[in-house]
């Protein structure tokens, strides 16, 4: 895939990628933008190569997830070394959400285990199959199914409580 094609694909999935970056960055919009920018640099500069083993979106989401994890690690290390960070804390924009049902979902999601949350986001938010979600997360179909079932039960319970 040449650069122009890559740009076209990235543009086509831009909205979905931003949604997934938000999920990977615990709904921190600034962080999500940073992560997405890093991902685009990686993809367009060839540091992350699409080799066609999975669908483009599945591969791109996996790159976004890995990059977000890298950003989280960097933040954690900076926090350990007491380096002040811009926009650390407080940039999570729950206030932008006007729908009460969506807001309740946002409050419940952080209470799930990360893997469960990720599988549910990929299946319900991005309309992926459980298999595609597993590929994105680099886990087997069986394990993705377990995370999906457990996550769904826990999320339903949390939403009923609220």
């Amino acid at each position: 895939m040449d650069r122009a094609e890559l740009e076209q694909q990235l543009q086509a999935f831009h909205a979905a990628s931003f949604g997934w970056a938000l999920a990977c960055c615990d709904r921190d919009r600034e962080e999500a933008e940073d992560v997405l920018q890093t991902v685009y640099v990686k993809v367009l500069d060839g540091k992350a190569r699409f080799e066609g083993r999975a669908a483009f979106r599945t591969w791109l989401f996996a790159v976004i997830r890995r990059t977000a994890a890298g950003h989280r690690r960097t933040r954690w290390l900076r926090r350990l070394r007491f380096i002040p960070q811009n926009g650390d804390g407080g940039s999570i924009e729950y206030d932008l959400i006007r729908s009460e049902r969506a807001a309740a979902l946002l409050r419940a999601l952080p209470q799930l285990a990360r893997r469960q949350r990720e599988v549910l986001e990929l299946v319900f938010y991005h309309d992926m199959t459980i298999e595609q979600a597993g590929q994105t997360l680099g886990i087997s179909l069986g394990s993705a199914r377990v995370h999906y079932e457990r996550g769904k039960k826990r999320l339903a319970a949390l939403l009923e409580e609220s």
Partner: protein
Amino acid sequence: MNNDLHARFAELRDEELRTIPPFAIVAPASRRPYWRRPAAALALLLIVCVVLAIRSRQTSFTADDRAAARAIATWHPPTDFLLRMPSTGVSR
């Protein structure tokens, strides 16, 4: 349960993706300046030229020079026998 979750996530998606940063704002920084590759190639070429120039300036020895060097290396002074000890050769 699935329908309810689908509906909730769809609402969340609609809300969140109402205000996404435009692709053009996120992507431009990813474009590597076009001059970088030619500049790197030029730098490499320059290094190769410098190395070749230095190599060509190095002194080259003729066969006579090499023969003279070998003769000097194998030369022994006439007084060399004075340094010989009676035990020379035994310890070897």
